[in-house]
């Protein structure tokens, strides 16, 4: 007889109805991974006896990340753990090892290095990786800490990393902000190269088995061919890069008939073209190589802020506006606004800043994006006057200073050291619940006429616009936050303190420069632009 026939009511000793019921239940891998309980720090320590596991620092769609120390090499490492369930079958281990070797070979300053990989005795897949101390891009987007200049700087580095990988035949497959880490030292590092394929492998192995449409992770960044499960090449990464760039610039995902970035936010209109081309449905209509994207981004970066520009046209328009204003109902205040001078100089002081030379006190550092992008001051336990000189020396004319400022929380405070004529004055923001100009007529900011108990927003970035305008022997100082007037003061220059150190401890080595300051740290300052009016 060719085959054994089941006896009685059982199949291999099992209840047939239960067997059929359970076997025909879709295996919801996504739900399974969601329900996955990552090992505790102690449990992971037992799996990796040579590491000192410090903490779990992330839990993603398909795994968990731990911070650990490797005492033998005296370095910090990240352990990325994937549930063993993603391994489709027994042959998986071999393929995993082959791929992991390729990933480990990707050594590049903008790619998170992989030190080791394998399977734990409990069946997890793991990667031992470079530890990057800093947030991911998703967080920076969420907290609006990504001014366009910085977004482009980050994008350029991501391009560099992808170019390097593509040249070595490695496709990332999951480019999205959460996979771009930004170290506190400013380094941009792309993480999780090729990792998505393990996830998709688990899906494919189960393609007819999982419920239709089960997608693990967010498909928002996936190229159409990737979403459709077709063969993909490096151009899928270019699509995802386009989506990510759009999000970095606008803070939103391009959904449906999306609007060009420059129509949503003030940004270089040439970026619209970059985003549009990267996000073409057909791969052949996109940029064919990521180096092209990078070249376009870098061109725009280089030309975005001309050092000097003639604004004669602006002046002419202003004059016309002024004339019309005389007839039409223009707010009085606007009419009083002096006609802008015909020439101005735009300076981006952070780009020329040498931290070692210009730090007067405090541990000022470069944050995400590298040199010249974001200035960070970590929270300190002691309250001391930290300050830094900006390489800008305003002349007798007025000036405008704008920047992005992030105050991490209610304990953070920030200061801008301004200068009017021969007088220096400190603008205090959020110090112990109030803000104002350091000393006015001998009175400290809490009691003087510039003070406010309103607070600059904390926990998210805000835009700070400061205008200092001498008008005869008077001077006006206006501070706007996110376009809304925050402090406005006008008075005789002599009312501003001539004290050496406004406010307490903000003494500077010279009288001419502008500066930044803080007492307790916990701040980030970026995109500083100073327009000197002549």
């Amino acid at each position, binding site marked *: 007889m060719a085959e054994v026939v089941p006896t009685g*009511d059982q*199949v*291999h000793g099992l209840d047939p109805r239960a067997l059929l019921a359970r*076997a025909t239940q879709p295996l919801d891998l996504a739900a399974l991974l969601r329900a996955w309980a990552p090992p505790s720090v102690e449990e992971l320590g037992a799996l990796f006896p040579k590491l000192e596991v410090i903490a779990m620092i992330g839990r993603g769609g398909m795994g968990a990340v731990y911070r650990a120390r490797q005492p033998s090499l005296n370095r910090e490492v990240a352990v990325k753990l994937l549930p063993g369930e993603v391994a489709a079958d027994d042959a998986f281990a071999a393929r995993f090892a082959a791929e992991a070797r390729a990933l480990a070979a990707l050594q590049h300053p903008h790619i998170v290095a992989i030190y080791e990989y394998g399977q734990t005795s409990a069946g997890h897949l793991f990667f031992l990786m470079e530890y990057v101390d800093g947030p991911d891009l998703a967080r920076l987007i969420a907290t609006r800490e990504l001014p366009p200049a910085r977004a482009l700087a980050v994008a350029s580095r991501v391009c560099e990393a992808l170019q390097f990988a593509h040249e070595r035949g490695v496709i990332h497959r999951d480019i999205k902000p959460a996979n771009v880490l930004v170290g506190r030292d400013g380094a941009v590092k792309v993480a999780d190269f090729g990792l998505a394929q393990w996830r998709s492998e688990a899906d494919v192995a189960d393609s007819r*088995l999982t419920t239709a449409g089960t997608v693990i992770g967010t498909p928002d960044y996936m190229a159409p061919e990737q979403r459709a499960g077709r063969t993909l090449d490096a151009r899928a990464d270019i699509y995802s890069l386009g989506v990510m760039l759009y999000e970095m610039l606008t803070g939103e995902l391009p959904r449906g008939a999306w609007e060009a970035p420059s129509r949503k936010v003030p940004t270089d209109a040439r970026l619209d073209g970059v985003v549009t081309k990267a996000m073409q449905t057909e791969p052949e209509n996109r940029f064919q190589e990521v180096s092209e994207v990078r070249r376009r981004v870098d061109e725009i970066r280089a030309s975005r802020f001309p050092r000097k520009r003639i604004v004669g046209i602006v002046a002419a328009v202003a004059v016309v506006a002024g004339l019309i204003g005389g007839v039409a109902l223009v707010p009085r205040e606007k009419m009083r606004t002096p006609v802008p001078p015909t020439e101005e100089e735009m300076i981006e002081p952070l780009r020329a800043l040498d931290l070692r030379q210009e730090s007067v006190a405090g541990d000022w550092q470069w944050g995400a994006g590298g040199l010249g992008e974001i200035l960070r001051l970590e929270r300190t336990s002691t309250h001391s006057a930290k300050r830094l000189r900006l390489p800008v020396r305003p002349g007798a004319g007025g000036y405008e200073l704008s920047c992005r400022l992030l105050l991490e929380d209610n304990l953070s405070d920030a200061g801008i050291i301004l200068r009017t004529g021969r007088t220096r004055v400190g603008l205090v923001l959020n110090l112990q619940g109030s803000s104002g100009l350091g000393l006015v007529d001998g009175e400290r900011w809490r009691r003087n006429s510039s003070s406010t108990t309103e607070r600059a927003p904390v926990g998210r970035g805000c835009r700070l616009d400061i205008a200092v305008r001498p008008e005869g022997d008077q001077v006006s100082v206006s501070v706007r936050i996110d376009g809304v007037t925050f402090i406005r003061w006008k008075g005789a220059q002599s009312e501003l303190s001539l004290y050496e150190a406004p406010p307490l401890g903000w003494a500077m080595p010279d009288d001419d420069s502008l500066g930044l300051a803080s007492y307790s740290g916990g701040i980030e300052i970026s995109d500083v632009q100073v327009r000197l009016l002549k």
Partner: protein
Amino acid sequence: MTADAAFQPTRWSLISAVRSGSAPRVQAALETLCATYWYPLYAYIRRRGHGAEEAADLTQAFFVRVLEKDFFARADQQRGRLRTFLLTAVQHFLRDDWQKQQRQKRGGGIVPLSIDEAVAEGLYAHEPADGRDAETIYHRRWALTLLDRSMNALREDYAAQGKGEVFEALKSFLTVEDEEQSAAVVGQKLGLEAGAVRVAIFRLRRRYREKLLEEVAASIDAQTEAEVDEEIAALFRALS
């Protein structure tokens, strides 16, 4: 026809190959076809009131009939489930033709199957003694056969990888909803950590599901998932 179709002999497409294909292939296909269906058919015939010896004879005679050239010509025309087609065919065979078939065919031609009465009766003794009719028994037996075939295929896979022990230790999880506690116990037995056992169970489930769906799809030569779903619903009914 794909290369592996020879190993999926429950497919209609294979049946058309029976008529046109090469002799060894036809032989292999038929053998598997017989091996899969003989017992559901035997049980049906028995439940129709035939004695053990008679039922064995009739089952074999029926398969001789199956071998005839025009048999599947009709099958193609009414293209439904093979399971249903065979049932209709055996009903027809029993009702009208069996005397004639017996006289003409018995002892002649290729008999693709020899039924050991003792084995057949041993199996039949397990059939429910309640009032279920022959048709119910047939469908039920077919569903069990399908589940069993999938299980056997899975066991062979594991055995081929030297993991027969793992299969035996874990197969009970194919019917268990909550596996956490017993997983730990099995883990100790196999010398695996609980996490590794969970992964192994997941794989086993996945692979059994694959095998079963393959079997189901092949048995009805399914073109769409909807057809597979429909057949699964039929299997549930057959087992109720």
